[in-house]
């Protein structure tokens, strides 16, 4: 079902008679990518499911305002990232600090991992979860989603040079953690 292009999906969505069909094609095309982006940030499947739904409900409500300045997937990643940041902001009120949130996410990671889980992958995730928020966002978008810096800069409202610096710092910290924990 991924044969439809972004232009075709937008055309279908803008027509009231085919809006639902356009939305279905859009979700079928992007829901896995967006889900994994969210899941890497919030760890728990239940949270990822809720945020994925909220992301696409926002898309359903506001896709008619999408003017094509950026690519459609960039816009989707931006909406999803904002939903994750909103969740972190809410949790920060209860947990007090970003470090507390990171600790909570690491706990959730270990609860979700099973004996079959690759322990190297679990340690890598733990290293990423212990990064500062901005570095974590840049690292996941660049390392896992392999997005170009120009697109990441549109998603995070940040300059490319700042993103490169953050990615470099994040990579160094992750490597140092993996060596230490090996």
């Amino acid at each position, binding site marked *: 079902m*991924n044969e439809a292009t972004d232009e075709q999906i937008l055309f279908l969505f803008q027509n009231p008679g085919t809006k*639902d069909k356009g939305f*279905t094609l859009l*979700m079928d095309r992007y829901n896995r*990518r967006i*889900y994994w982006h969210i*899941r890497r940030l919030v760890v728990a*499947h239940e949270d990822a499911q809720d945020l994925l739904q909220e992301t*696409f409900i926002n898309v359903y409500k506001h896709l008619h305002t999408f003017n094509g300045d950026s690519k459609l997937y960039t816009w989707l990643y931006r909406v999803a990232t904002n939903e994750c940041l909103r969740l972190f902001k809410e949790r920060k009120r209860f947990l007090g600090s970003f470090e507390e949130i990171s600790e909570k996410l690491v706990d959730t990671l270990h609860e979700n991992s099973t004996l079959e889980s690759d322990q190297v992958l679990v340690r890598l995730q733990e290293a990423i979860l212990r990064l500062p928020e901005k570095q974590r966002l840049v690292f996941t978008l660049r390392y896992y989603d392999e997005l170009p810096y120009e*697109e990441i800069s549109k998603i995070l409202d940040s300059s490319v040079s700042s993103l490169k610096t953050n990615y470099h710092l994040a990579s160094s910290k992750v490597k140092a953690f993996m060596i230490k924990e090996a």
Partner: protein
Amino acid sequence: MKEEFDLDKPQKPMPYQVPPGFFEGITHATLKEAKRREAATATPKSAFPWQIWAMAASVAVLLAVGYFLWADAPTTRQPIAKAGGQHAPVARHEAKPVLAPPVTPKAQKKIESKPEAAMAQEKASNREPRLATRKLEAGPEESLDNLLASLSDEEVAELAAIAASETYVYEESLQ
């Protein structure tokens, strides 16, 4: 060379599990929820439900009725209070001229026995409206003394004759 995002490129492995069939069901569930929310925002609940509007309308009606009752009250009560203080007739224009009553058989006998009285009765019958009219025209402040003072001697004599023959007519004339 500019980098390009490849949507179909296999993703790096993750240590997480996803429930089977999750991606197949999430699209339908999300579309359903999105449509439900869209319908809910299309017909937003009024900040003021109909009960509030009904209560406001009732208060407005009560205030309007109260205002008109209060506004009418001075115009109807004030003249009564003034008139009562001066012992004035309620409505002068509503009074009708008092006519002499028809001669009863008893009075007829008296008239036959006393021709002067009959003449006075006849005159009284003719003049009574004028007297009564004058009395009514006198106004509220005019007293009985003023009324009598305004009568000529001849009219006073006629009144006396009427008083002797018919007390009712006499009293009516003075009222």
